[in-house]
């Protein structure tokens, strides 16, 4: 193995280098355009990070980049009580993700393996909920949770986020389960495994990429959710990060440096997480219409 890898570059680099030294004009134009566009798309988030690192004295300066950088906004952030909001966000996103996996996995598995009466009706229902958004039925959601005395509760946010994001998980998992041959489970059962044992030891591990995609997608969606949380939570100690950050804007004296330190915490982790599943998301979002 060692000799192989040592030899490879010597033979492989020469033609590659030749190609690199003479790029066509077309390639140059494409590369420059692509990098400019890439910069354009991360530009607001760069300004978000830079503002969070600006010392307070330079917040209103008209220089594009600050003269000094400081982490103090992140350090003092926790005195504003935002730690509680971060905890709420983690509970909502974690809880919703767990609930979605618990509920979507059996449904996706069963609809992928068996034809039964009501199967198409169920899948149609799932598809319809995927297109619905909580915004459209906000008044109904508010009145329902009011009548169940679940306003200002983490549980309400977990339930709503799970309900509206479950469809994506069912589509992704259904596609994975259908692609795994039944014979694998049957072979495990011949070897003495129970039906459940075969599901847990054979099928689920093979569907792991689908499970991870569903997990990350639900987590991000619940993490970013704003309008339901804005409607259902009433006191600052029950609000997730998005609502708390929005609350900064309404304040008499906007603490921009804290607002952006909190925004960085709310934004950068999900961008990194999303990059992991980027390739699989489209087929789930379009219910397999394009893949």
């Amino acid at each position, binding site marked *: 193995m060692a000799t192989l890898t040592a030899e490879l570059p010597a033979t492989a680099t020469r033609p590659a280098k030749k190609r690199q030294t003479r790029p066509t004009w077309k390639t140059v134009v494409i590369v420059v355009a692509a990098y400019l566009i890439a910069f354009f*798309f991360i530009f607001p988030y760069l300004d978000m990070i830079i503002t969070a690192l600006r010392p307070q004295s330079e917040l209103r300066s*008209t220089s594009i980049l600050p003269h000094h950088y400081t982490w103090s906004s992140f350090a003092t952030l926790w005195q504003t009580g935002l730690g509680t909001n971060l905890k709420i966000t983690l509970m909502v996103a974690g809880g919703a993700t767990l609930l979605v996996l618990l509920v979507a996995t059996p449904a996706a598995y069963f609809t992928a393996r068996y034809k039964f009466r009501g199967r198409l009706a*169920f899948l149609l229902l799932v598809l319809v909920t995927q297109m619905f958004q909580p915004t459209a039925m906000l008044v109904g959601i508010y*009145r329902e949770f009011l009548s169940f005395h679940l306003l200002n509760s983490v549980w309400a946010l977990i339930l709503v986020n799970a309900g*509206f994001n479950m469809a994506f998980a069912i589509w992704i998992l259904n596609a*994975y389960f259908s692609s795994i041959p039944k014979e694998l489970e049957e072979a495990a059962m011949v070897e003495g495994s129970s039906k459940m044992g075969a599901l847990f030891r054979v099928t689920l591990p093979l569907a792991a990429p689908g499970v991870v995609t569903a997990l990350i997608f639900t987590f991000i969606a619940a993490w970013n959710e704003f309008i339901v949380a804005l409607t259902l939570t009433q006191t600052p100690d029950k609000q997730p990060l998005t609502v708390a950050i929005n609350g900064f804007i309404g304040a008499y004296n906007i603490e921009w440096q804290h607002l952006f330190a909190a925004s960085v915490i709310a934004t950068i982790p999900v961008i990194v997480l999303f990059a992991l599943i980027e390739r699989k998301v489209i087929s789930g979002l379009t219910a397999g219409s394009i893949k």
Partner: protein
Amino acid sequence: MSNATAAQQPAGPARVPSLSVRRKQSLRKRLAHGFGPLLWIGPATGLIAFVVLWPVVVMIRTSFQRVSSFGAIRGNNGWKNFTNLFDELAFKGVVERTVIWVVAVVALTMLISLALAQLFNQSFPGRRITRWALIAPWAASVLMTAIVFKWMLTPGYGLINILLHDVGLLKNLNSVSADPLGKATTAMPWLIFVAIFVSLPFTTYTILAGHATIPGDVYEAARVDGSSRWHTYRTITLPLLRPALTVATLINVMNVFNSFPIIWAMTHGQPGYSTTTTTVFMYILKGKDLGESAAMSVVNFGLVIIIVGMFLKISRWKAEVE
């Protein structure tokens, strides 16, 4: 997902006998436990019923109820909530603005995404990393993106204002023209810009997925025939991209119509009602008269149903699950 389907194919022929065995087993099982399927899909159905379907019922019921300003139900209100809504002075403008909002954002998003997908479909050094940068507005919360843009448009020291000032497009950093969100004529274009900005990644990726379904030999044949590049694009690429384009358009219409955080964070629908869409109007009414707000929701929901119907018609969900 392509490797998933590939894995299924070789198992095809061997599948026939085992399928009948399984059928028999599952039939016996179903007879034994008549509620078998319910055990597996019941929790999912229950969650949908509780969180998605029941709110629709409550919402429609509320739209016919008289609700006090403290939220107490004061009996039946007939169609009064709806007539009140249609009689609102701002209503006509809000509806017109919503149409402009949805059409402008979706049409421009589709056009720009077609160009972006064309670019990112080429192979060039750095494609992976540049495509990766493209997902940032998609992954980030729309609210955060809206807040950053509001910050960059702050009069006096917002970054976009500073840049416009540096290139000479903005004379005075503290003038009225340095506060585009405070003026009706400039606030809406900026909101549309931000909405397009956050819609581009999903749309571009969907069109890129569409590009991936077009086999390479089609282009080979066109080249042999001596077809020009633009002609090839119009007669081959665009028609073959149609499924991707229709799905992306419908999902975008749904997202943009329901879009709330951008407008709420940047302008709250102000100045006046000049940036209020029906979704934002529903939210503003919620603080004044819950019944009338429910009526607005029902009107919005009617449109949502139409979009869903179109999506069901064009999406290939049935072929996917059969």
